[in-house]
């Protein structure tokens, strides 16, 4: 049976409190203005001072490779990625956009921890020990011409003396404009496919690194989605992620991919949170606005029960995938199950909530309308539904790469 320990409950209470007080209102404001909260927003400072959303001990920085923790009781250790998952779900309940905008090293941090050298980890992650103001890291993989097909990235990297030069452009980089540094993926030769990939840490202010724009999105406006150009950007040799050695084998690219085995279920868990928010709003609407008896109410409750079923199933799939990882067991298939099952189900959940609100649902000032615009991106980020189907088929019955 799935239950929570005391510590996890406390953490969730903390997230809930912050969500209610800050994340939800900030998210609604961002939705109205169309702009992410400014990097100087006081809430980010609050988070920075705490060293994360909830505490130093747990948070998005944490994954199972982070064994430097003083807490080495295996039973408690197994909880840590699960807590990250639950924090993700609960934060997204209040506002997923704002949750994604929270200070921290982000996906770039995951790449650094997985494939960076000790020197690089120290150099780029130490900035997050500065609690006097908010800091961000970011990762830039996607390009205007290559979404799911990451092997086709066109940003070029070449050596020039003891520097690397980067030329190209990137899109869909979360928190990319406010980040202290961005892990940028480039290729030394597009003809080599994934074998030609290299990752570099590019620091803000490096000449030629130019933010082109902050995207205007249908929803999920609480975080910054940046496009930028790399116009002859020069980075020192020491910023090649993992050092030259790493790229002799194919582990370079795979390194980045393995981080997805935790990020996919956590991303999916955001959906569970958003679906819960829509569900709760609709339940409250039925309580307040529906006639106390009759067909409409019965029907609404049946449909909400189906939403609840889907959400709890999704949550179990996500938790199971993360639990496997916490046991040191392979979870690539299960992580894709989580990411494949959840987003369409959550879209259905939010859409059902809209049906239950009826005409009232069309309005901006009822939160479900915003959730409907927010939620669709879940099925695209961290590998589209189509990519997940391919992964599942590959793992289950050996779908060839060129099928």
């Amino acid at each position, binding site marked *: 049976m799935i239950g929570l320990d005391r510590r996890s409950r406390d953490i969730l209470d903390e997230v809930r409190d912050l969500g209610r007080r800050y994340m939800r209102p900030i998210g609604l404001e961002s939705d109205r203005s169309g702009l992410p909260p400014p990097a100087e927003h006081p809430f980010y400072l609050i988070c920075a001072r705490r060293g994360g959303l909830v505490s130093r001990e747990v948070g998005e920085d944490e994954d199972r490779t982070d064994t430097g923790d003083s807490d080495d009781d295996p039973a408690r250790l197994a909880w840590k990625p699960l807590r990250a998952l639950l924090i993700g779900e609960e934060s997204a309940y209040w506002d997923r956009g704002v949750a994604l905008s929270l200070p921290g090293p982000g996906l770039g941090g995951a790449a650094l921890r997985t494939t960076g050298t000790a020197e690089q980890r120290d150099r780029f992650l130490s900035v997050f020990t500065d609690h006097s103001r908010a800091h961000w890291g970011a990762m830039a993989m996607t390009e205007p011409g290559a979404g799911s097909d990451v092997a*086709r990235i066109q940003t070029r990297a070449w050596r020039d003396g003891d520097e690397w030069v980067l030329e190209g452009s990137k899109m869909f980089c979360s928190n990319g404009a406010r980040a202290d540094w961005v892990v940028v993926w480039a290729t030394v030769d597009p003809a080599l496919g994934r074998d030609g990939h290299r990752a570099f840490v590019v620091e803000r202010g490096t000449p030629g690194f130019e933010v082109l724009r902050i*995207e205007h999105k249908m929803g999920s406006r609480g975080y910054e989605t940046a496009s930028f150009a790399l116009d002859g950007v020069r980075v020192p040799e020491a910023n090649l992620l993992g050092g030259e050695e790493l790229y002799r084998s194919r582990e370079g690219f795979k390194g980045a991919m393995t981080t997805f085995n935790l990020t996919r279920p956590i991303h999916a868990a955001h959906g569970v949170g958003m679906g819960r928010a829509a569900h709760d709003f609709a339940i409250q609407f039925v309580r307040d606005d529906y006639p106390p008896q009759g067909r409409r109410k019965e*029907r609404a409750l049946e449909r909400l029960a189906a939403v609840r079923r889907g959400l709890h199933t999704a949550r179990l799939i996500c938790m199971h995938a993360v639990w496997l990882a916490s046991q040191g067991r392979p979870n690539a298939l299960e992580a894709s199950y989580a990411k494949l099952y959840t987003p369409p189900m959550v879209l259905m959940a939010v859409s059902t909530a809209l*049906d239950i609100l009826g005409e009232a649902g*069309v*309005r901006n000032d009822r939160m479900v309308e915003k959730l409907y615009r927010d939620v669709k991106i879940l099925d*695209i980020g961290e590998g589209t539904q189509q990519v997940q189907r391919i992964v599942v088929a590959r793992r289950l019955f050996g779908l060839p790469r060129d099928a």
Partner: protein
Amino acid sequence: MSFALAPEIEDLAAAAGRLAARSLAPGARRAEAEGRWPPEVVEVIHSLALGALDLPAVLGGVAAGALAKVEVLEALAAGDAGGLPALDQPGPAVGAVLACPDTAAAGEVAAACLAGVASCALVVADPGFSSRIEWAPGWPVLRWAWVIAGDDLALVEVAPAGPAPALAFHASGSTAASLGGAPVLGRWRLPDGAGVSVRGRARLWAAAVSLGVGRAALEATIAYTTERVVFAKPVAHHQGNAFDLAVAATGLHGAGLLLRDAAARVDGGDRDGGFWATQAWLETIDAVSRVTDLGIQLLGGHGFLVDHLAEKRFREARMLGLLWGGRDAADADVAAGSMSVEGPLFAETAQP
């Protein structure tokens, strides 16, 4: 029997299609930002006599019929649906105007609507829900509400209560209004089953606009996915995506036929026209939701940006499934008809 449209309807739809491509589509995003279609577009659409198409001459209309209206709306919506709720008056409320026993009152409303000086809203009411207008177009000024509850019709004078920003149709502006305490200009008990005809006309309207949005979405998705290459071939040529597109296209095709059949029934005086219009709305809303969802999905991250129209169509498709009583009222109407409405071609054959 024939699936062919009358030549005059084909001509009308073709003209609307040209107008949509030339005048509506290019300015869709600007109109969305400004909350209205520009005056020159409004003028050219008035030249189509949009609001008058499905009104009889006695109410100032041109009596082209429901099918003609559906075809024209669909063609326009494929260019930009954003301003249609505002510009097509009495539009979704046409069934109430036609059903209103007080022809003088109906004539006054119709005249103001056709002149573009005021608008009316249709409110599909439910005994258990408080009556309010959650959303209506912001222009021309909202002056009347037709309230239909079962077979009871009322005409109410309303005052707009400020903007009500919504999921889509920003080019129509927005307003909310309360019906509590508003002056009631008339109340009528319509003949049995006439309520579903009134609601059915709003659903025909929504289905036609939805279908136009869906057709445009399918076309744009096919254009994008046959162009853009991932994993060494066009997105659409990955069989998994091709399968999804094929199913989506099939659903749209079926919805289009059902909608046309329903509109023709309404024009033919079929007493179950409202039932079939409601069925067409349900089928279309589902089909277009799938198409517009897929439209974002296969564009990937780009589908989520306002740079493409995919996200706008996704929002429009959803909003058309919520207005005028939404799915609850529609399901209730078809359920009520499911024992009494005869088969459309021949009576359903009873069990032996």
